[in-house]
Structures are given as C-alpha cells and as structure tokens.
C-alpha cells in the first residue's frame, strides 16, 4: 500500500477537529502507513486564492506539495477543496516547465523546490482503490443500519481532467464505500449538486450561499434519511452550520446529523460519536447516539 502524508488543511483542524480524530482512528484501524504532513499551511483554498492570483495559489500549493516530496510520500487529503487545489496545482506544475520554473524561483527563497515526484489523493478515491470497499466491509465490526444521503461535493469529481473517477454524472465509488459500513445510500434528486459554499460564495454572498444549501437540505430532508455523509469539511460546515442559520433565518426545523465519511467509518469500527467528535457538530440530534448503539 502507498505511503501517505495526511494534509489537514484549515477547516478540519480548526473548525471540525472531530474529523481529524476520526481520520486518525480509521487510518490506524485500516493499517495504512500515514503520517501527518507537518508544517503545512492552507492549500490554499481554490475559491478566493486561485481567483485572486494564480502565481500565489500555485506557489503556496507547491510549498505544501514539496513538504511531502521531502518525505517521499503521496499526499492524502480529507477535503475536496484541498484536493482540488493541490491536485490541480500538482498537475499544472508537472506539465508546464515554464510555470514550474517561475514557482521554483519563489520557493528557492525558502530553500524549497517543487520536483513533481508525488501524487495527490483524496481519501475517498484512495480508500476505493486501496484497500477497496470489499476489504473495508470485512474489517467492519459494527455494521450500521442507517439510511444515508451521500454528498460527493464538486471538487472530488470535477473537473474530471486529472482525476480518477468512475463517472462525472453518475459516480458511485463513494456510495460503495458508504455501503461497506452496512449503511444504505439513499438516492435523491440533484444529488450531485453543489452545496453552495465554494468559489468564495459562502464568504462573499453568504445569504445566497445558504439558499443553495437550503435547497439541497430540503430535498435530503424529504428523502427520509438518518444523516448526511460528505467527504469535505467545507460542504460539512455548510450543511451543519447552515442548518442552524437557516432555522434561525427562515424558521425551518432541520436537525440532520452531518458526518464526514471517516466519522461514519469510525462508527462502523465501533467507536462512539464522542470518540469521533460527532457530538461537537453545531447541529446535534439527541437521538444520534441511540441510532447506532
């Protein structure tokens, strides 16, 4: 199995540390050789920073990538935004020598160099490939009987260039990993639609961004599910904190638990919601614990 370095990003360690804990527990249980990528910064986030200045975006991304190159490990991301940024920057810098030269001129000032030697992996894509859903199913100790709304999020699958995915319009690799825990992935309308957070919209046009989240939440709520499972802390924040904001603003009564895939898998490995920080979400369903006990 490939040796990995875990890239934390911003939102996981600084807003949803439960996802960091759940990731540590799951990787350990799965026997994956993964260490934390120390000294890393923001990926940087594709929405604001790539919009602002491509050279800055590439240079900061290249520094993060070269931290892993020094360790001779591939980067493992647990966020669609980090994956989108680092994967795209990695591909562009590998393919375009002129661009790489320019970025390396900046990196030289801190004694770094982008060499183009590693791959960027998203944890869902990584777990699908190695060990794969069948092996995960065999390792599950506490099969879950949950109905789940799977949310892929945009940058796990798009743009399809430079990504390993089964289908852009009807992907199923994430659903398979969810179902490996015993849970049922429930189909719903506009499943692949954006949560509304990306591209700087959540920060720049907050109310409109919430409206987009509200649209998806309304469909998910009608599907009669126990929880949402995502693989991106920004989508996660948009759905978790967005529910509370919408309830305040629009008088809705959403109370849908939102779990990162590593938290779902952690439950299937027998860890409690408290071990995995699920109880530290903004939207906490009091029935949560009893659902999977």
């Amino acid at each position: 199995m490939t040796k990995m370095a875990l890239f934390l990003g911003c939102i996981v360690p600084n807003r949803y540390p439960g996802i960091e804990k759940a990731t540590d527990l799951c990787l350990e249980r799965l026997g994956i050789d993964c260490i934390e990528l120390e000294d890393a910064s923001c990926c940087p986030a594709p929405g604001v920073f790539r919009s602002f200045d491509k050279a800055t975006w590439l240079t900061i991304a290249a520094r993060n990538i070269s931290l892993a190159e020094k360790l001779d490990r591939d980067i493992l991301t647990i966020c669609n935004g980090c994956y989108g940024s680092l994967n795209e920057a990695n591909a562009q810098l590998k393919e375009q020598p002129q661009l790489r030269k320019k970025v390396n001129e900046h990196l030289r000032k801190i004694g770094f160099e982008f060499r183009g030697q590693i791959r960027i992996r998203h944890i869902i894509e990584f777990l699908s490939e190695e060990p794969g859903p069948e092996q995960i199913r065999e390792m599950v100790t506490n099969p879950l009987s949950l109905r789940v709304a799977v949310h892929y999020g945009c940058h796990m699958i798009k743009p399809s260039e430079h990504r390993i995915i089964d289908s852009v319009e009807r992907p199923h690799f994430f659903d398979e990993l969810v179902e490996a825990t015993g849970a049922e992935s429930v189909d719903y309308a506009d499943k692949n639609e954006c949560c509304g957070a990306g591209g700087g919209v959540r920060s720049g046009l907050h109310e409109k961004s919430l409206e987009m989240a509200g649209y998806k939440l309304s469909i998910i709520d009608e599907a009669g599910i126990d929880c949402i499972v995502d693989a991106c802390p920004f989508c996660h924040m948009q759905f978790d904190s967005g529910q509370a904001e919408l309830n305040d603003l629009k008088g809705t009564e959403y109370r849908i638990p939102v779990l990162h895939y590593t938290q779902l898998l952690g439950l299937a490995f027998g860890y409690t919601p408290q071990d995995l920080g699920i109880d530290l979400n903004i939207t906490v369903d009091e029935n949560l614990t009893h659902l999977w006990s």
Partner: protein
Amino acid sequence: MDSELEEILKNENIDVLKCMQCGVCSASCPSGRHMTLNVRKLVRRASNKEFDFDEDDLWMCTTCYTCQERCPRKIRIADAILAIRSKAVSEGFIKSQHRDVARMLIETGHAVPINQENIDKREKLGLGRLPATVASRDQALDDVKKLLVSCGFDMLVENDSNE
C-alpha cells in the same frame, strides 16, 4: 475583448470565442438557479468588449465545474471565470469579505485559523492543542509569509479600486 483579459485567457489556453451560445452552461448552473448569474451571457461578454469587472455576478460562481464538464465546445468555462476574477482583483475590485479571508492567510497561513472554541474541542478529543501545521510552527509560518511577499500577494490584497 479587453486586450489584457484576452492575454490572460490566451495564457490559460482558454478560447471563449469557440462558444456557440447553446446555453448548456446556464442550464447546468446551480448558482443560476438561486442567483442572477448567467454563465452563457458571461462568456459572451468575455468574448465581446462588454465586460465590467466590478460586476457581482463574477463572484456568484461556486466553481462547481458542471458547466465546464458539459460544455460541448470544451471551453474551460470555470477556469475562465477564475482568470477573469484575477483580472478584476488586479484592478482592485475585491469584496471586503474576500479581502478579510486573504488577510487571514497573510497573517496566519490558514484561511480559517484556529480559535479558542476549537482549541477546547481539540483538547476534549485528545488531539494536540494546536495542529502540527503553520499554526504551531513559527519557521513554517515565516516561510509562507516570505512566499506571499515574494509573489506580491500582500500588495495585491490591499489594492482598492475605491482609493
């Protein structure tokens, strides 16, 4: 087209002139459902000389990339929007909220930095008080700051069209 914008799109290998105005992009756009963003028209304005860089629509795109995936002319539309945004930013059209996020990176190396509430959550989970990122590594944060200065990002962020 604004010659500088034309240059930027050309450097990115994006040819908006291939657009036949079929509208698949707009029909696929989630922001178009909830906001005034009309991607088809945006691409047309980018092809003509009608672009106002101060328009809000430019910042309604969530970069979901559905338009780009579905474009029958294979125009990298979302990438074009990002390129056009950078031109707007270079002219000082920056939303105050985005400027705040950018300043956060300059100051802390994270777009979303740690706060006390989450230090408490980390401790409760048995994680290190601070993550092993630039949040707890002075030398690493210093390197990131040096790179941001080297790229001129600090100057760019403080550039304001109203001044």
